[in-house]
């Protein structure tokens, strides 16, 4: 017997939710960002699972693109976080609230 595809989808959904929760709860910018990465990877998992279930390659191709784009985001994001850490002295997202109202 094969593991039903719905298991993967449920796992993807759970991972995605963990990612969302992480974004809401973590204060360190790096951790927030890692939570976002978790969301993206949950999506990737779902894509691959569905690609398999539907017997279509589109999903896997999509994953390639998601991965590359995520890499680009990592590059930009890390640079930004480093930059703001330098001028703010902290990587806590709650410390960045000059702009408001």
């Amino acid at each position, binding site marked *: 017997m094969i593991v039903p595809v719905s298991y993967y989808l449920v796992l993807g959904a759970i991972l995605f939710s963990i990612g969302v929760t992480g974004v809401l709860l973590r204060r360190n910018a790096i951790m927030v960002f890692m939570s976002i990465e978790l969301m993206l990877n949950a999506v990737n998992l779902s894509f691959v699972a569905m690609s398999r279930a539907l017997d279509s390659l589109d999903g896997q191709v999509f994953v390639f693109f998601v991965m590359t784009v995520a890499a680009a985001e990592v590059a930009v994001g*890390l*640079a930004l976080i480093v930059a703001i850490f330098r001028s703010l002295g902290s990587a806590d997202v709650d410390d960045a609230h000059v702009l408001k109202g």
Partner: protein
Amino acid sequence: MVPYVAIAVLFVLSTGVAVMIMMVGSLFGPRRPTPRKLMPYESGMVPVGRAMQRMPIRFYLIATLFIIFDIEVIFLFPWALVYRQLGVFGLLEMFTFLALLVAGFVYVWRKGALEWE
């Protein structure tokens, strides 16, 4: 489900054994800590500095650059599989792609991101 039962059994057993051995060791083993024993294990070398120290920013830079250039390779694999069917068009596409990467590489190089000092 049946074929997986064995795996599950193996999984439970291996975890169980590992946990048990560690418990047994900590329950019955003698405990005589010395500073040397409490040191972090770094392949037998004498550790240099603390583990929680700041890393030079260059490491981030290199790591970032590595991720970007590394991840692009995944586009080469599917292309390599079907490049005969794609023919000249595919070849041109891939060269364009690589040219873009090279441009990025030149940029990075010229900006001095690859210099260590």
